[in-house]
């Protein structure tokens, strides 16, 4: 089995070379291009000069570049020939494509036949390679294997020459060969017994075995490396393990998938092993894998890179900057990137670079869906942390995460642009206003004006009670833009919390809200008011109501005066009226001579009386204007001095004479009689 595919066998060509007035092709395939035929002629000749060839022969493996075929040949000594130095070489010629399907060389080895035992005709036709068996566990010293692999892949541009007496043999060479990915396998040149360098100028042998290690120094090969303790490389440990126990950890599959895209030949093995170790979790240091990727042609090794990226993505929080950037690039470019993994990458981007995250959110590449998916999963604390790092991200984040708008602490993150953040969101609900109010963040009037009056009023009722005046001020101001809502709220007693009403009275002008036929909304609001006010607040509110009563807007001034006059008078008399209350009230009082200005109580009484007279207000309201008899007498007295006052008071007198229900004890009537 190769990659899960069943290999059912394939045909190979064969040749026999030997001596016949010179070394020559004796039998078999004759249709090779001349250069390949020449290569076969040379490499089928004896690999040794004076050394004694092993009776069982030796193997030579090499590609035929023009034919796109690979030759595995066994060469035997031919002492039966008259000339010394003659050999037989039986070559099996395998298509590159078929070579890739081999997982073990044993099926090929079984095809070799020495000429003495068979007739020449047997070398004429093609041979069939049976079902390739899976490679069996190796039986050799792992130290020797480690030295060989370290030399081969640690010195990829060198010729590797090892001694048969040092434990190397045909079996280990074939296993190393079969371990390689197809592209490397088909370019790998090796010989298991030689006494000199078999390389030519254009075709260098990768691996050659010689009888004795001691003879290596005499070889005088350029760029020669001999396997041993010094050539072992720890990062190739997976290869050694795989050689002993083939493909238990998926290494060969990995090499097959990755190797198809690498062009570095043997030089790619070390980087690929480092990548494999990381991808399979054998090492946790992504730095090694990234450094390994640098050793490969990035434009080609996309599969390898993708595997590293996938692994990095799984532990994205521990990835370094370089690795993280790679993962990001991959998410951006790979439409098939796992969505859940991409979302994790997006979340990590938020943690590292909030501004880039927002950039991706609004972008059009494949990172955009990843960040959007991530945003829905990032918990509130992480969101706040990111916004703290880069407050400029708040509007875009809040736009997509509405829950942020009501999160405790969000509006107080230093540096965020509240107005822009509100503008970016579509949520204009009362709970957002409540969140903003309770955050006690500094909200501009223009920011508050983005909300509807109802939402502001509801929030004021909900959380305004516990807030300082400064914090609700912009909201109250914003309400002025929604007078209809405000009037309804006052009239319907939706805004009934006394401090809120008091603050509203501080914010707006007494004449700001119009009245309709249903009466004065302020009267409704104050009548249904709940909660306590301080003396000062109460004084100011009464001054506001009285000022409104004296102003031009209210249609029910008598009712407002009845609510406020007594308190205002008492506060003025006791010098307890807040200055802003008096200023507001003063603006509604008639002009007096400068020497009369000091008597504020008189001025108020006169103004109230004049209002009744001028507007011919309801007699009954005048009768019930205040509870204090003395004050009532004073008002009546001051009214009598005004234009038309005498006449109005006579109406009041007649009313009391007819119906004294509102004058217990006849005190008011008596007072009028004394005045009139």
């Amino acid at each position, binding site marked *: 089995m190769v990659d899960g595919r069943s290999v059912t066998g394939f045909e190979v060509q064969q040749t026999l070379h030997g001596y016949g007035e*010179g*070394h020559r092709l004796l039998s078999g395939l004759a249709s090779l291009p001349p250069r390949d035929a020449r290569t076969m002629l040379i490499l089928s000749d004896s690999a040794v000069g004076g050394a004694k060839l092993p009776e069982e022969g030796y193997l030579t493996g090499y590609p035929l570049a023009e034919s796109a075929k690979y030759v595995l040949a066994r060469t035997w*000594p031919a*002492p039966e020939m008259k000339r010394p130095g003659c050999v037989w070489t039986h070559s099996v010629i395998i298509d590159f494509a078929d070579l890739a399907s081999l997982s073990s060389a044993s099926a090929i080895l079984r095809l070799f036949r020495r000429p003495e035992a068979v007739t020449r005709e047997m070398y004429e036709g093609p041979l069939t390679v049976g079902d390739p068996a899976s490679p069996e566990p190796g039986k050799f010293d792992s130290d020797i294997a480690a030295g060989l692999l370290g030399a081969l892949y640690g010195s990829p541009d060198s010729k590797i020459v090892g001694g048969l007496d040092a434990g190397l043999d045909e079996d280990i060479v074939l296993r190393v060969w079969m371990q390689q990915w197809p592209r490397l396998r088909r370019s790998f040149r090796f010989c298991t017994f030689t006494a000199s360098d078999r390389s030519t100028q254009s075709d260098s042998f990768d691996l050659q075995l010689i009888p004795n290690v001691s003879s290596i120094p005499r070889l005088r090969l350029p760029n020669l490396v001999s396997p041993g303790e010094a050539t072992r490389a720890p990062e190739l440990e997976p290869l050694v393990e795989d050689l002993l126990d083939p493909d238990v950890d998926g290494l060969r599959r990995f090499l097959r998938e990755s190797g198809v895209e690498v062009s570095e030949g043997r030089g790619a093995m070390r980087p690929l092993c480092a990548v494999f170790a990381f991808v399979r979790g054998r090492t946790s240091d992504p730095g090694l894998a990234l450094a390994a990727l640098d050793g490969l042609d990035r434009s080609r090794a996309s599969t390898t890179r993708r595997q590293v990226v996938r692994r990095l993505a799984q532990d994205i929080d521990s990835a370094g900057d370089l690795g993280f950037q790679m993962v990001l690039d991959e998410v951006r470019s790979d439409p098939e990137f796992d969505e859940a993994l991409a979302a994790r990458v997006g979340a990590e981007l938020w943690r590292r670079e909030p501004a880039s995250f927002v950039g991706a959110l609004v972008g059009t590449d494949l990172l955009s869906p990843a960040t959007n998916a991530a945003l829905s999963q990032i918990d509130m604390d992480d969101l706040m942390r990111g916004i703290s790092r880069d407050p400029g991200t708040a509007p875009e984040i809040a736009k997509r995460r509405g829950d942020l708008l009501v999160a405790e602490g969000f509006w107080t993150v230093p540096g965020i642009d509240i107005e822009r953040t509100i503008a970016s969101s579509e949520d204009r609900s009362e709970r957002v206003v409540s969140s903003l109010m309770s955050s006690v963040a500094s909200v501009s009037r223009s920011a508050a004006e983005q909300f509807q009056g109802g939402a502001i009023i509801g929030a004021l009722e909900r959380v305004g009670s516990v807030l300082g005046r400064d914090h609700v001020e912009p909201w109250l101001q914003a309400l002025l833009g929604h007078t209809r809502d405000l009037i309804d709220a006052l009239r319907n007693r939706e805004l009934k919390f006394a401090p809120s009403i008091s603050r509203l009275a501080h914010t707006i002008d007494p004449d700001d809200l119009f009245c309709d036929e249903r009466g004065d909304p302020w009267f409704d609001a104050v009548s249904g008011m709940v909660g306590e006010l301080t003396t000062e607040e109460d004084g100011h509110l009464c001054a506001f109501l009285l000022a409104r009563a004296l102003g031009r807007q209210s249609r029910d001034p008598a009712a407002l005066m009845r609510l406020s006059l007594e308190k205002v008078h008492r506060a003025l008399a006791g010098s307890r009226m807040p200055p802003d209350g008096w200023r507001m009230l003063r603006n509604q009082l008639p002009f007096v001579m400068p020497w009369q200005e000091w008597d504020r109580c008189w001025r108020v009484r006169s103004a109230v009386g004049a209002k009744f007279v001028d507007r011919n207000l309801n007699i009954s309201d005048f009768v019930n204007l205040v509870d204090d008899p003395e004050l009532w007498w004073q008002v009546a007295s001051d009214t009598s001095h005004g234009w038309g006052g005498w006449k109005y008071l006579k109406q009041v007198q007649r009313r009391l004479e007819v119906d004294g229900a509102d004058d217990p004890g006849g005190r008011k009537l008596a007072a009028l009689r004394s005045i009139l």
Partner: protein
Amino acid sequence: MAMIEPNVSIVGLPGSGKTTFLAALWHLVQSGEIPTRLRYGSMSNEDYAYLNQIVKLWRRATEQGRTQIAGMKSIAMHLVDAEGRAIRVSFPDVPGENYRAMWEDRKVDEGLAENLGTGNIMLLVNGDRIKAPAWITERLHLAGKVEKGPAEEPARWEPRHAPTQVQLVDLLQHLMRAPLHRGARLLAVMIGAWDQVEGEGLSPVDFQAAKLPFLDQYLKSGRDEWTFRTYGLSAQGGEFDENDENNASAKVRTDANRLRELDVLSTRIRLVSDGPESHDLTEPLEWLMGDQ
């Protein structure tokens, strides 16, 4: 010092004794056992390993193995003549397969072409392995004697079946045509294994005329610009032991024992020409230097 290079190419079909000649020459100039026309000066590429390997076998009176096809071994040797002139002698000790390919495949290796295109030629012919032409009249005569013999399918003709002298003439003609042509050349025809063929009582010149008439006529006709001499050469001096490399049953020969026991190994070498017989292989080399 005058430098003349390169000058000699040793040419011969497989098994013609090229490597044995080189081994004998190396022994001759290295040992100084006998006076020679040319003496050893130096090696330019210091490839002693190969020379030492082949000379070891020669001294042990053991047959040389085949020269492998892979890696042409170009031996460049400085020889000094009696007048003190240094001469660079280049021996492309290439396998016979390369010359065979020139005949059979009409191809010449680039490196070999470079060598053959510049020097004079020493053509080695194994006198004991000359493949004579198969005359049709002889075949018919033989067939007449073997009545009702086994019916034989005529073998398909292949270039390899051509007579030795046909191959040699073709080879020499190649050397006089582009890309190998370099003008008039000197040619030393060395009839090797002379100790094996001298029993016929022919001088080397007569041997050439009798056994290689086509070659002889080609050279004498002057069709190409060859100036030639013919020598009889026994570079071994007798039968060597078979090479025991990969051959456990290699034969040990009594003649080889005799050769090993000679006090002066250089006397194994025998060079026969019109003049007195000598042991000096450098004599034809000196002649081949003559026009340079």
